[in-house]
């Protein structure tokens, strides 16, 4: 299946077989990357707000495939944000390069950009909306660890109300037949809108407050951090941030499967004890590393190299 010329705005736009195409390509990139696949191709990375990790990961991916990069970031990016309309910037830059990686604080910015120009637009985060390459790397991390995205039990833990990563990943799992378990205090549970969509999509899922109850059944536990800026009240945040705490002792006590793998988009706060790092369950460092092969796969696919 060819994804040549495609924009990557939201994982919603990708069918099951297209997601599988990305998974297989990422697997090949992880094993043995073709170093001159994109030689002669130019990627522009336009970061209108800072996100050092994401930008480094994209630029590394492009360089590893033999491509070149021009970029706008830091104060240059933020001043561009004030200076001219996004539409004008995108239209001009599209004439310089073969694809644009766009990070912008406004929701839907990438969708707008993709409608304006013919070259592929890759959304590297548009406000609270989507960050599809993060979702693809999460999917790939599960796929690479479990060799499938079907028939799994995947737990989501922490801030499920505001967590964009969780929403996008849960939405993407609608294409697959796995059971999703959402663990959060009631005030941070998965929004009803999304739960309704999952239900309509025939996804098997439940919402609970007890992590002990679901842990023994899980193949994947996806932890997220509870963010301070979501709370107006300091006391409420202090109460919530420590509500779940995954450590080696808990994993032992609840008799988790030996094959359980724990993911976390990092950085972590209190929810995941560093003593888990030493166990076979830790997958989050690999998850962070998977950003580069996943983005290599996406760049290779949309720029037509593979």
């Amino acid at each position, binding site marked *: 299946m060819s994804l040549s010329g495609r924009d990557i705005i939201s994982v919603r736009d990708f069918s099951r077989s297209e997601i599988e195409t990305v998974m297989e390509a990422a697997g090949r990139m992880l094993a043995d990357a073709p170093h001159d696949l994109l030689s002669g191709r130019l990627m522009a990375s336009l970061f209108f707000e800072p996100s050092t990790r994401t930008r480094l990961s994209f630029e590394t991916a492009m360089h590893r495939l033999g491509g070149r990069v021009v970029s706008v970031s830091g104060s240059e990016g933020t001043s561009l944000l004030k200076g001219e309309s996004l539409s004008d910037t995108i239209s001009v830059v599209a004439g310089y390069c073969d694809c644009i990686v766009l990070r912008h604080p406004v929701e*839907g910015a990438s969708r707008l950009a993709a409608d304006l120009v013919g070259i592929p637009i890759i959304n590297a985060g548009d406000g609270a909306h989507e960050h599809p390459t993060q979702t693809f790397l999460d999917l790939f991390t599960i796929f690479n660890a479990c060799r499938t995205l079907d028939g799994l039990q995947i737990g989501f833990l922490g801030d499920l109300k505001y967590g964009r990563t969780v929403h996008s990943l849960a939405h993407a799992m609608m294409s697959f037949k796995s059971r999703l378990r959402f663990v959060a205090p009631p005030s941070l549970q998965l929004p009803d809108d999304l739960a309704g969509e999952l239900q309509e999509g025939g996804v098997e899922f439940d919402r609970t407050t007890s992590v002990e109850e679901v842990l023994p059944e899980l193949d994947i536990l996806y932890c997220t951090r509870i963010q301070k800026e979501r709370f107006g009240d300091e006391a409420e945040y202090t109460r919530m941030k420590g509500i779940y705490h995954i450590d080696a002792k808990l994993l032992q006590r609840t008799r988790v499967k030996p094959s359980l793998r724990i993911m976390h988009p990092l950085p972590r706060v209190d929810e995941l004890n560093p003593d888990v790092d030493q166990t076979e369950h830790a997958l989050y460092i690999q998850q962070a590393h998977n950003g580069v092969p996943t983005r290599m796969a996406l760049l290779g696919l949309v720029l037509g190299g593979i």
Partner: protein
Amino acid sequence: MAAEKMRKREVSAIKDGTVIDHIDGKATFKVAALLKADSREHTVLVGANLSSRKIGRKGIIKIENTELTPDEVNRIALAAPDATLSIIKDYAVVMKRRIELPDVIEGIVKCFNPSCVSNHEKIQTRFIVVGRDPIRLRCYHCDRYETGDEIIL
């Protein structure tokens, strides 16, 4: 039948133009405002709070010598989804249909998400109609849902 004739007379007949009937009772003046009833070229007759066997209380709006644009029809469809539209020529109804929402609405609805790109760049808004009863729209740009009264015209 007699009652029907009585009601017709509550708002004078027009010779040529458009009649919007079966407007949800509470939406009559909203529709009138959407059609800019008080600043149009031709006469507009508005009947409000009329009794209707089908919907309890209804409104009716008659506009002389005018056919509505598709844009205007879409506006009405959002405010009064059960309304009907009749074209009148020489006092006779030459066409009557229910107003229907298209699958995609462009340029009429405002996205209530202040962080949406449609509120930052000079572009047309675009909404996908995902539900019709009640009306539920999804913003093409930011994917936020708007339902019923949340919809800003």
